[in-house]
């Protein structure tokens, strides 16, 4: 299978603190890769590196290499705007902008220079449909996105990410702030999106990882302890620490 990301000997430091240690990991195209591990192990740090959102933190330094479709993304001269456009991101807490639903979705395309009303209308509709939220909001596209429920907001954020036509979707605990029903809607949606996008998802919920992911990576204190097919990780973990973790001995 083709790889979207190839991570080689990657290290990341917050100032003096080495938060990721010698990570080597190839990530499949059109698959769902789950990242698990106890709090503070570096899952968010890792996922944020993949679209250079870590640039926002001044103390971050990196070594090693990460190729996105065979292009080095750690390069200082890289245009992060175009990287982020292709590698979209959905966050733990739904973060719709305080504008109308329509404007939320149109924000990305507008930023990238699309002005035509007809074009925008089309993108908005398509993205909302893809994110399985169109029916719920189609009558109130002009009302504030903050009036939606948490689960709807999260799907709106996914729609917003889809609107710029990304290639990869990064999701950092996208359901941890949601109720069971919204959670299962998002899980279904993610399984759906896998057809067209490569998805990398961080989760604290082991059952969730089992339910939706193809591959799972287990992090501990900055180390990638084990990486493999989800079945294998959960049924026959090779490392004692993985076993302890998935059996709830800590975390």
């Amino acid at each position, binding site marked *: 299978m083709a790889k979207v990301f190839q991570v080689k000997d990657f290290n990341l430091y917050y100032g003096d603190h080495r938060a990721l240690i010698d990570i080597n990991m190839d990530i499949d195209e059109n698959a769902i890769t789950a990242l698990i591990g106890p709090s503070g192990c570096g899952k968010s740090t890792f996922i944020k590196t993949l679209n250079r959102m870590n640039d926002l933190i001044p103390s971050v330094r990196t070594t090693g290499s990460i190729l996105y479709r065979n*292009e080095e993304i750690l390069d200082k001269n890289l*245009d992060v705007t175009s990287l982020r456009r292709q590698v979209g991101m959905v966050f733990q807490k739904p973060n719709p902008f305080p504008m109308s639903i329509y404007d939320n979705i149109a924000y990305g395309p507008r930023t990238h220079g699309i002005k035509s009303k007809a074009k925008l209308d089309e993108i908005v509709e398509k993205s909302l449909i893809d994110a399985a939220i169109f029916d719920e909001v189609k009558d109130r596209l002009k009302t504030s996105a903050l009036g939606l429920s948490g689960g709807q907001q999260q799907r709106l954020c996914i729609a917003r990410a889809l609107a710029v036509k990304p290639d990869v979707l990064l999701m950092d605990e996208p359901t941890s702030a949601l109720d069971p029903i919204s959670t299962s809607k998002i899980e279904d949606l993610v399984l759906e999106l896998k057809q067209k996008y490569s998805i990398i998802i961080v989760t604290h919920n082991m059952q969730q990882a089992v339910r939706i992911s193809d591959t799972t990576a287990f992090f501990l204190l900055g180390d990638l302890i084990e990486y493999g097919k989800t079945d294998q990780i959960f049924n026959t973990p090779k490392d004692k620490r993985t076993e302890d973790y998935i059996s709830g001995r800590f975390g």
Partner: protein
Amino acid sequence: MLKKQGTGINVEQIAHMVFLFLGIINVGFVLVICIYLVIAGLPAIKEIGLVDFLFGTKWASTAANPQFGILPFILTSIYGTAGAIIIGLPLGFFTAVYLAKFAPRPVYKFVSPLIDLLAGIPSVVYGFIGMLVLVPGIQVIFNLPDGSSLLASILVLAIMILPSIIKVSITAIQAVPEEYELGSLALGATEIETYYKVMVPAAKSGIAAAVVLGVGRAIGEAMAVMMVAGNAPNMPSLFESVRFLTTAVASEMSYSSGLQRDALFSIALVLFVFIMLINATLNLVLKHRGKN
């Protein structure tokens, strides 16, 4: 394909430069003010002599044989400020604890705009009312020949710093994590015990900041004090007419000339140094708080 960053200058970079400039300009302002004060203030100090200037006890700027000792002003400023804090701090502190922790919602809603109003009243209004009410009042109560005095200034200053002490203390107390409160209550302490034995000590650096802020405000106030202090360059004494560093500058500025004028700038420089020391203290206090 991922784009590489262009080499030309784009909107983003221009925006960055503009904002950088707007940030730096503040440093420029401070430098200009310092430089001007030093340039304007040093000549007189040089001519008079630093020791004579700072520790001279007689100010007679237009005498045939002029004397420029500002010790009376320095001491007055110190005493006046200390007095204002001694009166204003307990008053403000207890009010703040009450408002922050005990006041029922309606009382808080009623009183806190009053405090804001008090904070918003211009200093000349305080001076004006002080001049009409406090000064004659002090003259009658203490049976003095005249009520314009250090005491009148202290009272006006105490009232003026009251709202800022209250507001900063309230913020400090409210910023104390609720967990301390819960922890103490859960051990069977009453609310008053909790607030005074746990919350207030935890807020002490914030309250210290309030004090320093009050000191800064009191030491820098000119107009209100000018209206009630009497402005004679006496050594400070509670019932005597006195002159502060600020009023020393303000009262003679308009008619001044020559060395007298330069000396007034020197007073401003001394005042500025005082304020900078206070600010440094404030910074230390705040930094200390940041650490906890």
